[in-house]
């Protein structure tokens, strides 16, 4: 289940829906990321996120497929906010379900690394006196690179 949403993300409601689908999973991990109030620019008033459908969804689907070959997962959900959002609002929600907690943790971690570094999004921060398009951070590339050497954790 992959969704790009222009509406606010309600992580607890998404977790409830996820639980209903995967009853008896054994282990469920969720990640939710919130828009940060401060950046290098200063105080962020609005974050603007562009996606390119269906290329963005296709990329996420591919990352989910890879995760499913690496770990035994009974269910995966990815919901990503697009458009304009305010600090504190949830920008991304990922849920993974597996019989084994290690698999659920690692798959969620892997998907978040994909979403934060390689996913097809363009991001603009708007502060009181500037607007800036954000380029990928070096730290993010390092996180994603962790998965390329066959490392499982």
């Amino acid at each position, binding site marked *: 289940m992959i969704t790009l949403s222009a509406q606010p993300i309600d992580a607890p409601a998404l977790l409830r829906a996820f639980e209903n689908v995967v009853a008896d999973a054994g282990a469920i991990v969720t990640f939710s990321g919130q828009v940060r109030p401060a950046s290098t620019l200063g105080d962020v008033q609005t974050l603007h996120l*562009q996606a*390119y459908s269906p290329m963005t969804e296709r990329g996420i689907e591919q990352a989910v497929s890879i995760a499913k070959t690496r770990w035994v997962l009974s269910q995966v959900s990815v919901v990503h906010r697009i458009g304009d959002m305010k600090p504190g609002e949830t*920008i*991304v929600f990922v849920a993974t379900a597996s019989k084994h907690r290690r698999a659920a943790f690692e798959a969620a971690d892997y998907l978040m690394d994909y979403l934060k570094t390689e996913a097809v*999004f*363009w991001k603009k921060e708007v502060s009181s006196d500037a607007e800036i398009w954000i380029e990928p951070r070096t730290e993010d590339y390092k996180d994603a690179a962790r998965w390329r050497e066959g490392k499982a954790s």
Partner: protein
Amino acid sequence: MTRILYFGRLTDIAGTSEENLDLPASVETAGELRTWLDLRFEADGALLEPTVRIAVNNEIAFDADALSGADEIALMPPVGGG
């Protein structure tokens, strides 16, 4: 008419996130489109950077690829994740 999409900072350079254009007959490949648009926007090479990728009908295209049959062309600076 071809639909052209500009993403990220290219939205600012183009002054729009999308437009419908009749491409001149001389623009036959993705690379030729870059050059033509870069001049048109006086973008000073911003569209020529190899990190700016082009997608034709939602598939990544190389500069040598022909644009024939292109309904939608996207110009995409490096993606930054969400």
